[in-house]
Structure formats: structure tokens, C-alpha cells
């Protein structure tokens, strides 16, 4: 692959997908990514820029992809998971160097779609900083349309969904953006 200078990369890029173990216990929620807020994510006010929350959640999603078996080789073979929607909720600001821990819960799925819920928490205080809901679609990248996941991939995400079935439904899930009036 030719390296394009200055483009966006993820810390998990190039890492091979993990070998799936049917007997392994699946964490509920999954904890696959943590990071420390770097200088290039800070805005003029020395707080993390909005889009960088999405970069961090994207990195966690990328770790999830490799956990279920979607890596560069999987993409090169003509399929990928595309983000169809993202809904971010901001609760707290992030300052330079703060430790960030991401969790990931699989809320729902069908043969082609995954509904994910991410949380970002402070690595020391465990304070809830931000949440993200994402809808991902499994696509045939050549044809440019959605297609069913292959059986092994679907089995992996189904096992994760089963492991996550007992987790409570997060309060923000499924709610559209709105100005809710108190009276």
C-alpha cells in the first residue's frame, strides 16, 4: 500500500484480525481500545475537537472489526463494513493527555447491519465523557451495495450479541436529537 502523507490513520491499521476462538468468553461490554488525548486533537481552546471524539470511537470500531475478522485482507477481498449513521453525545470536555477508555456494546444486528453503542470514559476517574451510536452496513465494495455477511462473520457477531444481551439498554439509544421542552 502506498503511504499518502498526512492522511488519517488508525492505531490498529495493518494489524491482522485476531483468530476467533469459539470457546473464549466475550467481554460485555467489549474493551478493545484505549488512548491518551494527543496534542493534534486539541482545538484553540485546549479541549478535544468534536471530530476527534469520532476518531477515537472510529479507532475502537476498527479494533472491533479486527476482533470479529475484518482486516485489510478481508477488505482487499471485496467486502467491508461501512458506517451508515453516527449519533454522538457529548457529556464532558477532554484535556490534553487525559487517558480515555472505550467500551463497545453490540445492541442489535441482522444479516447485513450492526447497531453499536460506544462509551468513552476517563481512564482514572471512570467519568462518562461521551457516547456514540453507530449503524454499520456490510457491503460488497466492488458492487457498491449491501450484502449479507459471510456465515463465519455472522456467527462471530451473533455470539457477541448473545454475550451482550443481558447488558442494559443505554438510555440515549434510539432517541433522535430534539429540544425537549420541560413544560
Amino acid at each position, binding site marked *: 500500500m502506498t503511504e499518502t502523507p498526512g492522511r488519517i490513520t488508525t492505531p490498529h491499521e495493518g494489524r491482522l484480525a485476531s483468530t476467533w476462538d469459539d470457546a473464549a468468553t466475550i467481554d460485555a461490554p467489549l474493551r478493545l481500545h484505549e488512548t491518551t488525548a494527543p496534542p493534534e486533537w486539541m482545538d484553540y481552546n485546549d479541549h478535544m475537537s468534536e471530530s476527534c471524539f469520532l476518531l477515537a470511537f472510529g479507532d475502537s470500531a476498527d479494533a472491533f472489526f479486527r476482533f470479529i475478522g475484518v482486516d485489510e485482507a478481508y477488505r482487499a477481498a471485496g467486502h467491508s463494513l461501512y458506517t451508515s449513521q453516527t449519533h454522538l453525545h457529548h457529556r464532558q470536555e477532554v484535556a490534553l493527555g487525559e487517558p480515555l477508555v472505550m467500551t463497545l456494546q453490540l445492541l442489535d444486528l441482522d444479516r447485513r447491519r450492526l447497531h453499536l453503542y460506544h462509551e468513552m470514559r476517563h481512564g482514572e476517574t471512570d467519568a462518562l465523557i461521551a457516547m456514540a451510536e453507530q449503524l454499520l452496513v456490510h457491503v460488497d465494495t466492488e458492487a457498491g451495495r449491501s450484502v449479507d455477511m459471510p456465515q463465519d462473520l455472522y456467527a462471530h457477531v451473533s455470539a457477541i450479541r448473545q454475550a451482550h444481551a443481558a447488558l442494559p439498554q443505554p438510555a440515549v439509544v434510539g432517541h433522535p436529537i*430534539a429540544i425537549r421542552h420541560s413544560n
Partner: protein
Amino acid sequence: MPDRTAFGAYREQVRPEWLDYNGHLNDASYAIVLTRAHELLLEDLGLSAAYRESHGASMFTVEMHLRYLAEVSAGQTLTAATTLVEADRKRLRLHSELYADGVLAATGECLYLHVDTAAGRTVPLPDDRQARVDALRDAHAELARPAHLGLGVGVRP
């Protein structure tokens, strides 16, 4: 009286640093584009960076909902059509259609809170800014609301 059309000041080329490994606009970069388009509307309302300096208050994004509709590549020109959907004394809700070379590439919706930056809590807008917000909201009241407004994220049959 503001225009009775969607706000369309945003226009710029896709930047190389917004692209990912396959040369497309990265997921998170759509948020950058949306934020930059909305910043121009906030500036028009007198609620941008200069306002933060002069008033010690700022519009904070509390929610953002992006729907990705098409891939965007290097060299394309981005534009936006932004509507002020809803507002009250402390909150603004903006919706944008984002276009790449005239093709609808994404929609984005944001909820902003007006926050006193020193106190770290929401406060009502000053009267002059409220008047501008109300005028724009009234001007945009007749604009068509897209069907996806008011829908959350989910796997729907």
C-alpha cells in the same frame, strides 16, 4: 430579515488530511465538515469564536447525528445547505445537507447549548443574539423538514 432559503455560505475543497487509507473522506472528517459549515452559520448569528472572547459564552455541541450517503474523494468541492430547525433561550438545533460536487453526500444534525464558559453551565442567550436566532428560525420555518429528522439510529426492517 434573513433569507427564507437554507444557509449556504460553506464552500471548500476536500483537504488531503481528511482522507483515509482508501482515499475517501474519513467518517470523522464528515464531522469536521459539518462543524465548519455550522460555524459559518453561528458566525452569522454572532455566536462564533469572537463571541466567546467578548461574552465569555459559547455554543457547545452536545449531540451530533451524521448519516453517510455517499463517498467523497480528493479534489471534490463541498457545500452545505443548513437549516435552523429549532431554538429556545439556551438551545439551537441545526440540520445540514452536505454536498460533494453537488451530490448529496451526508446529512448532519447538531444540538448546541449556550454555555457560560467560566461557570460551565447553560445560560440564556443575550437579547440581541436571541433576536437574531428567532429571526432566522422564523425565516426557516417554512423550509421542508427532511423525513429523517426525529428518527434515531437503529436496525429497521
